[in-house]
């Protein structure tokens, strides 16, 4: 396929794919922002009404609107925001302004987001560090001892953990590891000045909850991907070359199974960043999910948009990462003819 003797420089397909995905990612981000912006536009009520709740009066609401520029047409507001984003300014939160108008300072979205994003990423990394190796180990061993009692046990147990609602798993863990045994605290409301090990200790329960929630999916995919390859002629060839079962799985099946496994891992890691609102609520963990839910209920559009951009970007980057791994582990793509 190489452009034989062509004068123009040919990008390595890996680089080309990455660039292509990044481009698509930007378009995706744009559309996501458009969708969320208009969704919130369609939601009944606005920031003033939401914040004041029962105490909302037409004139106070109008005052809010005027100050926040909510009286401008929708498209103008959207392009304002978009212009900001393009120049690296995520805008200011609606909240944090004073109630009397005028010179009050409001909080930039980035200031609100940054510490919470750091928390979210910390929790996600904790959960990932536990769950990914665990899932791989369980998946590989289950494939190795396919059909055995061990395989069935692992299967049934992981299925059971995913079939409980997250908050339920969380409460159970609190009961056992916090209330009964006092091993870990039930609150994970870490502050910015908590040192690393303290942070690890406080985050243990939420990380464990998330681990239980995602490990099954990754483990099942690892197992399935390996088993799927076990019928390949090259696996039989490896057998006929005298490789043992574990050698076959580790050296011959696993290197070819990375693509689907990594895709599922990326999907679950994205979930760790994006989908943990419920766990944040239960453990009072100051993450981005809670921020976004709060921002949605108060119609704090810039914050919603900021969170959505981060979530979508995480999703896109993780998928890109998975794609890159898939390419790197697939010589057909890495070393084209």
């Amino acid at each position, binding site marked *: 396929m190489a452009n034989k003797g062509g004068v123009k420089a040919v990008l390595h397909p890996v680089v080309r794919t990455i660039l292509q995905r990044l481009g698509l990612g930007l378009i995706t981000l744009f559309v996501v922002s458009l969708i969320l912006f208009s969704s919130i536009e369609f939601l009944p009520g606005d920031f003033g009404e939401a914040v004041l709740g029962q105490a909302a009066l037409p004139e106070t609401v109008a005052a809010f609107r005027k100050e926040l520029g909510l009286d401008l047409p929708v498209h103008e507001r959207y392009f304002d925001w978009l212009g900001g984003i393009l120049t690296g300014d995520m805008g200011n939160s609606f909240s944090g302004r004073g109630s009397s108008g005028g010179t009050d300072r409001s909080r930039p979205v980035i200031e609100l987001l940054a510490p919470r994003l750091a928390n979210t990423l910390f929790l996600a990394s904790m959960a990932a560090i536990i769950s990914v190796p665990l899932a791989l180990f369980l998946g590989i061993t289950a494939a190795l001892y396919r059909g055995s009692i061990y395989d069935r046990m692992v299967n049934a147990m992981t299925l059971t953990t995913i079939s409980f609602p997250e908050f339920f798993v969380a409460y159970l863990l609190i009961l056992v590891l916090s209330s009964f045994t006092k091993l870990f605290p039930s609150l994970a409301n870490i502050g910015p000045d908590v040192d690393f090990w303290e942070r690890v200790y406080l985050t243990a329960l939420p990380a464990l909850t998330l681990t239980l929630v995602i490990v099954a999916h990754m483990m099942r995919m690892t197992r399935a991907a390996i088993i799927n390859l076990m019928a390949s002629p090259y696996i039989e060839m*490896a057998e*006929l*070359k*005298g*490789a043992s079962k574990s050698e076959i799985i580790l050296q011959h099946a696993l*290197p*070819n199974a990375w693509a689907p496994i990594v895709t599922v891992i990326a999907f679950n890691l994205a979930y760790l960043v994006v989908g943990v609102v419920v766990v944040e609520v239960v453990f009072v963990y100051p993450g981005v999910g809670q921020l976004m839910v709060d921002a949605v209920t108060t119609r704090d559009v810039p914050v919603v948009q900021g969170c959505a951009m981060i979530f979508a970007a995480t999703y896109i980057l993780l998928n890109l990462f998975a794609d890159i791994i898939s390419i790197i582990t697939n*010589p*057909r793509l890495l070393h084209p003819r």
Partner: protein
Amino acid sequence: MSTERSGQKGDLLLEMKDIVIDGYSDDRWHEIVKGVDVTLRRGEIMGLIGESGAGKSTLGLAAMGFARPGCRITSGSIMFDGIDLMKVSEAERRALRGSRIAYVAQSAAASFNPAHQLIEQTVESTVRRGIKPEAEARADARKLYRDLQLPNPDSIGDRYPHQVSGGQLQRVMTAMAMSPRPDLIIFDEPTTALDVTTQVEVLASMRRIVEHYNTAAIYITHDLAVVAQMADVIKVLRYGETIEDAETRKMLAQPEKAYTRSLWSVRSIEKPEEESEDIVLKVDHVDASYTGSAKVLDDVTIEVPRGHTVAIVGESGSGKSTTARAITGLLPPTKGQVLFNGKPLPPLLKERSIDQLQKIQMIYQMADTAMNPRQTVRDIIGRPLEFYLGLRGRERDQRLLELLEMIELDETFIDRLPAELSGGQKQRICIARALAASPELIICDEVTSALDQIVQKGILELLLRLQRELGLTYIFITHDIATVKAISDQIVVMLEGRVVEQGMKSEILSPPYPEYTKLLLSSVPEMNPDWLTGLLAERERESSSNP
């Protein structure tokens, strides 16, 4: 080089006695191999020949003490160099595999792990068993690559399987088998998937290296002509039983059993050619290419006379299947046009009328993938009847039965699923599906190449009969010269997207040949144990005289 190896036979290496192997299907165990004996001496090559289902691969694998999942060796003894493979532990059997007994599989492309470099795989078992240290094993592998006449032997091992052609892969696999210097190599249809011209080279390399290291081998194939070049002795299997055992020359000269004789009977059909001026289809100066890549068809012009057969011959990648795609509208030509009954066909499939579609039908190489596995014969053949002819209910079933009769099957087949049919039956159903549309022209794309010899013969006879009875026109795409001889009136030889020669069968198949045609024709194995030796000698001579 000589094939006179009978004098070199050494000690007894492998003795399999009364081997019975069961396979599990449809909830019970069936015997696949029913008490077969095999005796092999050091340095001896045994050809194992038979149709699919004869149990030859299963028996070959049993020589390694190995049964595929879903199979089990139920009785018999396997003595390999004094070791009873049936008695030792799995770990001990495993230790023999890849060190003292090696295996060369049919599809090299599928049997190499796509994730590892070739040389890693070549030396894998040698290093694992500690036969040689890694560096030495790699050096030896490069030497083997050179012995096997692979291009760039020092660097080819650093490539990945997909970067290397099928013929080269097959040789790398031979190197892989040879790397631990085994006492025995099982070759399981190693050249079946290759083009004829490549097959010759691979066969030659394999023979040379096996001879060189005096390795014993079991060569499994369904092609008698191929095995004749390789084996000292031949064993014919059918339905898990031995039909005939003999030395190669004796077997070729005087096969005892009728079944053995029938194995090369396919080569006996030959259609008398006829000329005709009534052109039903004309491919007119057609160029074609897949999006963004180089031309795959370059100024192709083919005329197909009504009621006759045009065979398009060429190796894989020559553009013969692409020509079919251009005719059917799947790949619109970038230049030129296709004329049907004198009128141009719209280049795109979507733009063709139902009537135009109906008149040109296609039959595929792999009947397995050409039929929806979830549909019964009734659905498969019935659909074109409904779709083109508007037949429903009783009328449709009536016609269905006629069609089944035409393809020599009866009504018991009407509710079967493709999985419940044999290879030949499947291909017949595909033929019936094409016939159901009442077409003028049928494009047959390698329709017999996946089939056993006997079945091939049946299909070819059927096609010839249908042509006589219904006046059908065929475009027959194939790489097999014997098939061409059997069915065609005219031949088109293609190479790299171009027509290199075309004309009546008798013209093409008689000298003087253009270079490529000659290569193609000379590469077809003949039922003569000395054919390969002679061919190689001749080519050697030519290349030295034309530097």
